């Protein structure tokens, strides 16, 4: 088990190094730091001197090492639009995205498990067919379209709910302004959460149903029936336990999809999170901020996926003895 954790951690470090190379290459190829610092009146000689002083004439590997060293100290360069360190900008936007992700994940977990199990057990019932039909329609509607529809119905037409921003915020501790504690903040949270859930929920319902259906056909479930165990015990204790394992792994992978969809949702609702910040950074060609977002999001993915893998290896010995494949 120890060797397995070490191997996974090394892999994670390697992936982060690759991300840093990509991020650094982007930084190198887009924009010129000297031009950003100096004005038009600075002479070519002075520019070259500055170039030397900043170490921009060093070879790619040397500059990349400097970039990694800075990144390890939490320095990913300055956002030229906000005139602040890029990491600081991202950390100030992270709570907004995190709150959206938390409420959505809660809703998805609370709804997808019962619906998925129900659809697997009673696959012929009308409710199950409705759920499966609904879920294929759900995956076919892009998240931004759901968001626009919700805005039109609830904000423009009925005027019940706000259509943009985060509303009243309360600072729960330094740097974290939360919308969870005011009615106004919760009202602002409602539409974005519903849109994001509308695209993530069908994915998980379909996944849980497929896994559960497969588990129900295995030998050990038949054996449990033959032993005369209560049906509810077979379903919720024996079968569900093994359904959950693949769902957790895919859940880790789906985090990437969720974060990508926050970019879309935040853009529609002008939600002050990392996603809309990233799109603005692209529009303004704010390379440092773009690269910082890449590294930050990459770090989240790698950490979450590694933790999920380790948990999975802990629960399922087959994985950790299989040569890490």
């Amino acid at each position, binding site marked *: 088990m120890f060797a397995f954790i070490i191997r996974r951690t090394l892999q994670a470090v390697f992936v982060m190094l690759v991300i840093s190379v990509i991020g650094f290459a982007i930084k190198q*190829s887009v924009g010129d730091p000297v031009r950003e610092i100096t004005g038009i009146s600075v002479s070519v000689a002075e520019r070259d001197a500055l170039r030397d002083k900043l170490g921009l004439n060093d070879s790619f590997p040397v500059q990349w090492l400097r970039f990694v060293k800075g990144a390890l100290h939490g320095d990913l360069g300055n956002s030229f639009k906000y005139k602040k360190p890029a990491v600081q900008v991202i950390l100030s936007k992270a709570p907004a995205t995190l709150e959206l992700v938390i409420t959505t994940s809660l809703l998805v977990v609370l709804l997808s498990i019962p619906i998925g199990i129900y659809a697997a057990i009673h696959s012929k019932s009308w409710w199950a067919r409705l759920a499966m039909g609904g879920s*294929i329609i759900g995956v*076919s509607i892009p998240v931004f379209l759901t968001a*626009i529809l919700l805005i039109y119905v609830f904000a423009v037409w009925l005027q019940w709910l706000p259509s943009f921003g985060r509303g009243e915020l309360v600072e729960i501790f330094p740097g974290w302004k939360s919308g969870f504690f005011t009615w106004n903040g919760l009202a602002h949270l409602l539409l974005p959460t519903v849109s994001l859930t509308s695209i993530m929920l069908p994915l998980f319902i379909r996944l849980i149903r497929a896994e559960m259906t497969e588990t129900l056909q295995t030998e050990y479930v038949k054996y449990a029936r033959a032993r005369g165990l209560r049906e509810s015990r077979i379903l919720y204790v024996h079968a569900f336990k093994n359904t959950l394992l693949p769902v957790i792994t895919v859940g880790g992978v789906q985090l990437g999809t969720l974060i990508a969809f926050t970019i*879309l949702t935040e853009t*529609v609702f002008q939600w002050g999170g990392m996603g809309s910040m990233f799109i603005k950074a692209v529009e303004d060609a704010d390379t440092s901020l773009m690269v910082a977002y890449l590294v930050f999001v990459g770090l989240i*993915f790698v950490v979450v996926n590694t933790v999920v893998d380790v948990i999975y290896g802990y629960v399922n010995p087959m994985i950790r003895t299989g040569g890490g*494949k």
Partner: protein
Amino acid sequence: MKLFKKITASNLFYNFLRDPMAIGSATVLLFLLVASFGAPLFTSHNPYDQTTIDIMDAELPPIWTGAADADSRFLLGTDPQGRDMLSTMLYGMRVSVLIGAGAVVLQSLIGIIIGLIAGYKGGRLEALLMRLADVQLSFSTYMVAIFISAVFQGIFGMGVYSDYALGLLILVIGFAEWPQYARTVRASVMAEKNKEYVEAARVIGLPQRRIMFRHILPNTMTPVLVISTVQMANAIMSEAALSFIGLGMPPSQPSLGSLIKSGFDYIASGSWWISLFPGIALVVLILSINLLGDWLRDYLNPKLYKD
């Protein structure tokens, strides 16, 4: 004629005719494809012809709303640039389908070659290629597509990017989604490569490349066909998402996604039709492809590589 007979006599076609859902979605899909690719024949306006567009016609509502400014020339109203909604939508759907199809061709090419080599050769090369696919997948295809197009836009600048948007989007989405194919193909190659016909081919002394591409590859086509439908829907969806956040098709060559985006800017003023109609077209297009894919998967029922 012989091919036609072969198709109509096949089990697949027999099963197809007995599934109303499959017939329904195939009909809808065919209708949409004919309408969009035949757009110049069916539409009264050409959204690419600047001379026929009048900015004074901008944002007119659909004719059945009975609004005072509804114009009988524009059945579904007009967009913010004064283009006929129906014509622009059909031309836009053509762009969306083209990008989707192009991206699927590209990603299947990359994915099949990588999956075939990884599955057949095995060893270190396989471990490296599949780890690469896993890592890229864990970032989700949307994320990868958004990043690559953001970088492209940064490198080329917005003007050049929108000039070559169609080709670049095919590249971006094609590159973002190859791991799906690579994993599927590798899984079937693993199952095929120890079968007797492959051994026989090896014993005869056929070159590796011939065994891989002529003997094994045709037997991995069933799962490839099944995921291709889902991938096509995904590619069209990715394109719409990229266009919506401004990293896709420019307003002058609209796709369904960029039409929805241009309508979103006017939603607060009550111009719902600019977003709604392309939105419906997009959903119906994706839904019909997904339903057809579901039917194909249930019918062919290949062992798809999971997790």
